[in-house]
């Protein structure tokens, strides 16, 4: 085989590329020809999809937006516990990305990112690459299966679902509950905070109890919480357990699950071996793998530090991080991801136009939990940028519902429909 001049040049270029950022070679060709300014967004969840729509709208469609997402459809994690309770199906929570494409001109690429080169501002996929002016990493969470002996991604997919990303595992967990004997134990293991959706596991206990009360009333819900106490809406959840599901929900604090016997469905804590009929282990979490590929994960190996004016990474310029992956005293929720996404979108548009971003952002989180098929409770806060601390700080006046109500249950349903229209419509 002879090497011609052209091949030699190619090899030389490749050699330089490896030298500039060791280990990463620019793969294949540019997947979409880049003409003007381009923002690439990795992850089409609440945060990423919102950023895509709002960058298009707020740049008057002048900035090209490419959204890379591995799934064909969007499935809402918020309200997915109601699939367990039975008031919704997973289809009710599934939406398409069509309006982002057709109405807002977002370019959607379905695929997996394999590497990111922050210096050459390029995202690699299996079949080519995409170069960017700014990159937004919105990877959500990944699970730290290695923290629990016996557990891994395959076990979660086949026998002990976490169901902490809405989809097939949510349906699988519901099916396990349906096949459970009356008098069985449904055990939920909660990791130490911070994790996605602080009130979510306690809402899940309510939804499971709601199903069991109506279908298998001799059964129990056992909560094994790694935290020293209920981390969110404590009084409201305890009232719901005591009043709606008396004698059905048992709560154990400081009960981190360290090991799992998969075949025997036994969860082992420091003190106990707990035998369950349905075992739902929610593992500890960290920023999704794309954050590691971008090299923007902090020293803790879990979350990404950002500047809260722009959501630009503290590690790499021109890479922004939004949503659950961000290291902050902000709840990891769908609404919070959209609130961050809008501040990030506004800043990205301003910066690409050579202007200064909004220096005084204030954002909101409203989080509803369904404690039965009709009643809900909420927690709501405004968070403001604090210049001295360079952090987002909870403003005065936030808090939780006075009591659970069907009125709030109706609002929770409105909230879901409206936020999905805001993100994807």
């Amino acid at each position, binding site marked *: 085989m002879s090497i011609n001049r052209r091949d030699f040049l190619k090899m030389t270029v490749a050699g330089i590329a490896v030298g500039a950022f060791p280990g990463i070679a620019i793969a294949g060709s540019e997947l979409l020809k880049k003409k003007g300014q381009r923002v690439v967004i990795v992850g089409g969840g609440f945060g990423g999809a919102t950023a895509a729509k*709002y960058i298009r709208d*707020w740049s008057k469609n002048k900035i090209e937006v490419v959204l890379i997402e591995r799934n064909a459809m969007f499935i809402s994690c918020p309200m997915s516990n109601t699939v367990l309770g039975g008031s919704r199906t997973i289809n009710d929570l599934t939406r398409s990305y069509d309006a982002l494409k057709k109405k807002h001109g977002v370019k959607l690429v379905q695929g997996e990112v394999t590497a990111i080169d922050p210096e050459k501002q390029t995202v690699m996929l299996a079949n080519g690459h995409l170069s960017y002016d700014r990159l937004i990493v919105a990877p959500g969470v990944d699970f730290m299966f290695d923290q629990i002996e016996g557990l891994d991604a395959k076990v979660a997919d086949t026998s002990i679902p976490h169901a902490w990303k809405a989809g097939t595992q949510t349906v699988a967990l519901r099916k396990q509950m349906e096949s459970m004997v009356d008098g069985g134990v449904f055990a939920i293991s909660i990791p130490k905070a911070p994790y996605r959706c602080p009130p979510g596991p306690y809402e899940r206990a309510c939804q499971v109890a709601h199903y069991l009360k109506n279908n298998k009333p001799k059964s129990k819900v056992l909560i094994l919480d790694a935290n020293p106490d209920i981390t969110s809406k404590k009084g409201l959840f305890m009232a719901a357990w005591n009043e709606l599901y008396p004698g059905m929900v048992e709560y154990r604090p400081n009960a981190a699950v360290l090991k799992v016997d998969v075949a025997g469905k036994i969860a082992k804590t420091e003190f106990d071996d707990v035998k369950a009929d349905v075992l739902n282990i929610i593992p500890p979490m960290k920023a999704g793998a794309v954050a590691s590929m971008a090299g923007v994960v902090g020293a803790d190996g879990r979350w990404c530090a950002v500047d809260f004016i722009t959501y630009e990474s503290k590690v790499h310029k021109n890479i922004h991080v939004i949503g659950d992956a961000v290291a902050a005293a902000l709840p990891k929720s769908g*609404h919070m991801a*959209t*609130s961050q996404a*809008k*501040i990030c979108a*506004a800043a990205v548009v*301003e910066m690409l136009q050579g202007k200064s971003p*909004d220096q*005084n*952002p*204030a*954002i*909101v989180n*409203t989080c509803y939990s369904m404690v039965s098929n009709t009643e809900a409770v*909420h927690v*709501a*806060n*405004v968070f*403001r940028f604090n210049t001295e601390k360079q952090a987002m700080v909870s*403003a*005065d*006046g*936030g*808090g939780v*519902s006075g009591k659970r*109500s069907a*009125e*709030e249950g*109706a*609002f929770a*349903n*409105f*909230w879901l*429909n*409206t*936020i999905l*229209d*805001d993100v994807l*419509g």
Partner: protein
Amino acid sequence: MKKRIIFALTCAVAMALPVFDAQAEVDKHARNLAGSCAACHGTNGSNKSGMPILAGMDKALFVTALKEFKSGARPATVMQHHAKGYTDEEFELLADFFAAQKISKKH
């Protein structure tokens, strides 16, 4: 004479332009603040879900409602938690932003 008046007016408009520019910057801050409201009230304050529609809302009504949520004079399930987190100046900014929005039938 007429021409001179027109010229003077043109100058006045031209001189006023930087003020309009500054106004546009303020509007972006208001727009960003309003962004968080969209989760419940819809993109730019329009929704078809049954939540109160803020697009096109009378400014005085908006400010009064938020001040009453803040003081507790107007009972609410969730809005008191939001209203207490904002300043009266921000109520004005948000009110101006939403008053200027058209109701979208699509949302």
